[in-house]
């Protein structure tokens, strides 16, 4: 249920029922809000950014190989 709500994969009726439950259940409310935040933080922060120098080196290597015929 939790993941369906996060992914917006619930019917209108089910959403209303879940929202009603969440109003009275702190346990589920905190789990939902912090799980959503977990996803948002991972999505919005680049944790494995490529150094620009590497990008250019790989790029040159790929194009050189391709021009010779891969």
């Amino acid at each position: 249920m939790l993941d369906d709500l996060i992914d917006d994969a619930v019917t209108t009726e089910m959403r209303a029922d879940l929202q009603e439950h969440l109003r009275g259940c702190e346990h589920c409310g905190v789990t939902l809000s912090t799980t959503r935040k977990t996803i948002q933080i991972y999505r919005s922060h680049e944790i494995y950014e490529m150094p620009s120098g590497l990008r250019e080196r790989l790029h040159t290597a790929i194009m050189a190989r391709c021009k010779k015929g891969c």
Partner: protein
Amino acid sequence: MATIQSIAGENEQHPDVALVERVRQGDVSAFDTLVRKYERQVFRIAQHITQNREDAEDVMQDAFLKAYEKLDQFQGNSKFYTWLVRIAVNESLMRLRRRRTGKMVSIDEDVETEEGSVPRDLADWAPDPEQNYTQSELAEILRKTIQGLPPGFRVVFALRDVEGLSTEETAETLGLSIPAVKSRLLRARLQLRERLSRYFKRKSGSAAVGPAPMGIDK
């Protein structure tokens, strides 16, 4: 298993289709465009899976070269991006297996853990908890936290939540069933949430939250 459907309708061709067609006709610069468009995503996925920078660099190069070589095998019924991701995932898993000789590395293997099934740490988080850390501290926390997940959970979370593939696309890319993807995704999310709680939770009796010490217990 569900088939990946093209987002664009028949009359709305995805821009990649035209680029792929140009490459097939010998225009290497069109492939150059595809590389620049997706290199960051491919590198990120490779890093998520291999957890090794050198391997991720190799995977990125090998994945694009393989995509170029095998472009004739690309069927227009899936998106070029998801096709490329499938190649990158396979290359990444191969590298991971090589580094972990003797250890089981399989995304098919289901991992039963108690963590991630029943939330234990239910302390609420501070508002905008990431503000309490510098960018580099936060990146380190996020890297260490996701590194602790089993590879089969990590890859599902990376594809679905970080890269934004649909459940169906993730299932097809990894050769998993849709229920398996959903189950792993939920457990990955809950495990990450629980592990991040020690950094982000609201301190009792205080509105201001100071940075927690770096390092993550396994």
